[in-house]
């Protein structure tokens, strides 16, 4: 394999891992309350620990070990349209080392998708329930969708795939679905899962009544910056056509950045008009909204259309985050408002804007748009059902949620026995709070 490209894949895999820890952990942690920040970060870190292992055991195998249709048209059977065999490359035993870097890259995608969900259940989900939810959910929802979209499955352009059923070509769909880096697999998937889980877990005590403002926006800003940085690995590392390496990666990098800049400005404009002030949380949120929206589209737009997609995403997400108060569901850190809505904007938007006369507005007719919409709907359905199954199973066995007193006391202490800060207050916090901490340090008898 070409080493320059290979090096970029090493960089990209590392960048996407950085997105989860500490990127997302900070973005979410800063938005939660100071009594919940550690649990918030732990949901990201533990997702990394668990999914990392699970991916090596059966995740890669379920996603890529067999495809529905191999190059010569011979198929891996109908079931292979949904997921491939978990055992053929179990534990990567039989995986070609030349593919390890792709295992690494794809692993980090599964990790962050699971971690994204945690934002919807901030402050109240049992840590043990989370540790059980994550591996089961990626197995039932993420791996199959990754296979369907990227592993030559039902949502690819494979014969008798969804796109092919809509507009049949010879041997493959006439119009291939577009999901460059994970609009459906990652963002729509996480967004729907977040919504379902938030509904199952229920609202936080005092939701909509008590204030639940971000406890440390500087963390959220650091997180947004690191997410942006890591996202270059996420999008630019998803390049498929190596012959165009130098031109396509440049385009994807630029589109990613332009859409994100435009989305940040779009969000700030909505705030200025609606609330009278543009906020830093709005800037951080707009950045993520733009990155989410451009994810599926980054390889199929040109600079101007990337800016258009970005500004639309920023504005729509800025409005969408308000819905939870109207419809009274507690999607605590707006996984729905940012990732589901942003993912839909990108996935469907590319149906309008795809370059080379691919989209409705770029002279390509409606076919691409139809395909994109149907793929998005199917992904939402799959994710909703899978999440519902896992969520209900946990709810009626071990339980999903802390009891009320524990929630009021604070999940950081209840679940982790820690407090995030001990800054003291006297003399500009020149010394740790003598009140905030205890009288004796004694080793726990092991």
């Amino acid at each position, binding site marked *: 394999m070409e080493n320059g490209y290979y090096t970029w894949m090493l960089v990209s895999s590392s960048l996407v891992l950085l997105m989860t820890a500490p990127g997302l952990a900070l973005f979410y942690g800063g938005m939660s309350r100071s009594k919940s920040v550690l649990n918030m970060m732990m949901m990201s870190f533990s997702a990394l620990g668990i999914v990392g292992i699970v991916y090596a055991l059966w995740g890669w195998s379920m996603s890529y070990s067999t495809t529905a249709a191999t190059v010569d048209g011979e198929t891996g059977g109908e079931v292979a349209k949904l997921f491939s065999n978990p055992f053929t490359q179990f534990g990567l035993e039989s995986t070609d080392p030349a593919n390890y870097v792709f295992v690494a890259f794809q692993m980090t995608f599964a990790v962050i998708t699971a971690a994204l969900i945690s934002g919807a259940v901030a402050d109240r989900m049992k840590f043990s329930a989370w540790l059980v939810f994550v591996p089961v959910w990626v197995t039932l929802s993420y791996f199959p969708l990754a296979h369907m979209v990227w592993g030559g499955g039902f949502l690819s352009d494979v014969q008798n795939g969804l796109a092919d059923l809509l507009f049949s070509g010879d041997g493959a769909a006439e119009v291939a679905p577009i999901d460059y880096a994970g609009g459906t697999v990652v963002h729509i998937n996480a967004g729907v899962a977040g919504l379902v889980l938030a509904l199952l877990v229920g609202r936080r005590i005092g939701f909509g009544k008590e204030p639940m403002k971000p406890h440390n926006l500087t963390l959220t800003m650091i997180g947004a910056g690191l997410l942006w940085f890591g996202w270059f690995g996420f999008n630019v590392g998803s390049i498929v056509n190596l012959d165009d390496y130098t031109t396509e990666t440049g385009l994807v990098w630029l589109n990613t950045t332009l859409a994100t800049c435009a989305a940040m400005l779009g969000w700030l404009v909505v705030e200025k008009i609606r609330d009278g002030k543009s906020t830093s949380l709005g800037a951080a949120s707009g950045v993520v909204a733009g990155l989410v929206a451009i994810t599926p589209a980054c390889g199929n737009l040109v600079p101007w259309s990337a800016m258009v997609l970005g500004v639309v995403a920023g504005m729509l997400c800025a409005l969408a985050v308000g819905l939870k108060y109207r419809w009274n569901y507690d999607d605590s850190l707006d996984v729905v408002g940012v990732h589901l809505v942003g993912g839909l904007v990108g996935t469907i938007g590319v149906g309008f804007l795809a370059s080379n006369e691919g989209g409705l507005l770029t002279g390509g007719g409606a076919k691409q748009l139809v395909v994109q919409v149907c793929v998005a709907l199917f992904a939402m359905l799959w994710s909703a059902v899978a999440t519902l199954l896992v969520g209900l199973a946990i709810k009626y066995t071990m339980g999903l949620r802390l009891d009320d007193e524990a929630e009021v006391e604070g999940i950081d202490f209840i679940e982790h026995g820690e407090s995030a800060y001990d800054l003291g207050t006297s003399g500009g916090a020149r010394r740790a709070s003598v009140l905030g*901490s*205890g009288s004796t340090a004694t080793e726990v008898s*092991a």
Partner: protein
Amino acid sequence: MKLVTAVIKPHKWEDVREALETFGVTGMTVSEVSGYGRQKGHTEVYRGAEYDIALVPKIRIEIVVDDGDAEDIVGIITKTAQTGRIGDGKVWVSPIETVIRVRTGDKDAAAL
């Protein structure tokens, strides 16, 4: 004039404030304090080392009131802040000789 000092549980603060507002209290001064008493703190663990947190967070409220209102206000606070569980806190009343409003220099009743 009297000074009513109350030490209550943090999550009761909003209710107490509303109750006092309804009664007609126009102002108060509050601060976050730590309480030590029957209600014990808890234990945190860092790398296997246990820390006993002896103190529990409380809210301290100071209200300067007319002699006549003191009793009612004490009653309102006691009623509203009560959960029945250990750690609900204390309320005490002490005498004040005079109170001045800085903005106007008004004294006593007029200062509130």
